[in-house]
């Protein structure tokens, strides 16, 4: 399991490649599902220039660990990973990466969706957007889907 709150930009694909390379491959994994959230240049009808991501240091890491552990138990995962950016984020940069490894496809896909949905609804992160107009605003709520 790997859980990380990242102040610096990261490339999700090289994170996954490095993570798998240092793990022992043992022939048991048949399915990997992953989800990546990326910063768009628009939100709620407005052009967005950049974003600031605040978090509750300590609780965030704890919550993400609980979440990953819960998913690993519920779907009998072989492994799971959650990385989330904090700080200043620009367009096309990765905000979040979740991944689930399992023997078969259904648990991997179900767990991956669960990780991102639960993270969005419960993990203590907050987005503040800077619009192209210069106006700053806190995002009030995540879209339901």
């Amino acid at each position, binding site marked *: 399991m790997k859980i990380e709150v990242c102040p610096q930009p990261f490339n999700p694909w090289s994170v996954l490649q490095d993570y798998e390379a240092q793990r022992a491959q043992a022939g048991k994994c048949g399915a990997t599902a992953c989800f990546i*959230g990326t910063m768009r240049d628009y939100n709620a009808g407005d052009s967005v220039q950049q974003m600031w*991501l*605040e*978090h*509750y240091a*300590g*609780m965030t890491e*704890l*919550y993400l660990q609980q979440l990953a552990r819960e998913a690993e138990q519920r779907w009998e995962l072989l492994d799971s990973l959650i990385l*989330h950016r904090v700080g200043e984020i620009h367009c096309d940069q990765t*905000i*979040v990466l979740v991944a689930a490894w399992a023997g078969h496809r259904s648990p991997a896909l179900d767990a991956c969706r669960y990780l*991102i949905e639960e*993270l*969005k*609804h*419960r*993990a*203590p*992160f*907050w*987005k*503040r957007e800077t619009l192209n107009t210069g106006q700053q605003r*806190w*995002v*009030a*709520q*995540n879209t339901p889907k």
Partner: protein
Amino acid sequence: MNITVKLFASLREQVGKGEVKLKADKPMTIAQIWAQVSEEMPLPTHILMALNMQYVEPNAIAKAGDEVAFFPPVTGG
């Protein structure tokens, strides 16, 4: 001993405080702590509360040494 109270994001800006140490002579509910920190602002409807980094309801009880946090709906991911 104190109770440490933290506020985040828009709520921190609304209340005008990010972190407060409250004197805790006796245990208090989270709702009582909110009243004291916010100087009697009504508890916002969608506010989230944590005690020692676990989600709790307003009737949970905090004592000296605990960390309490108030924050708006989360918007990560």
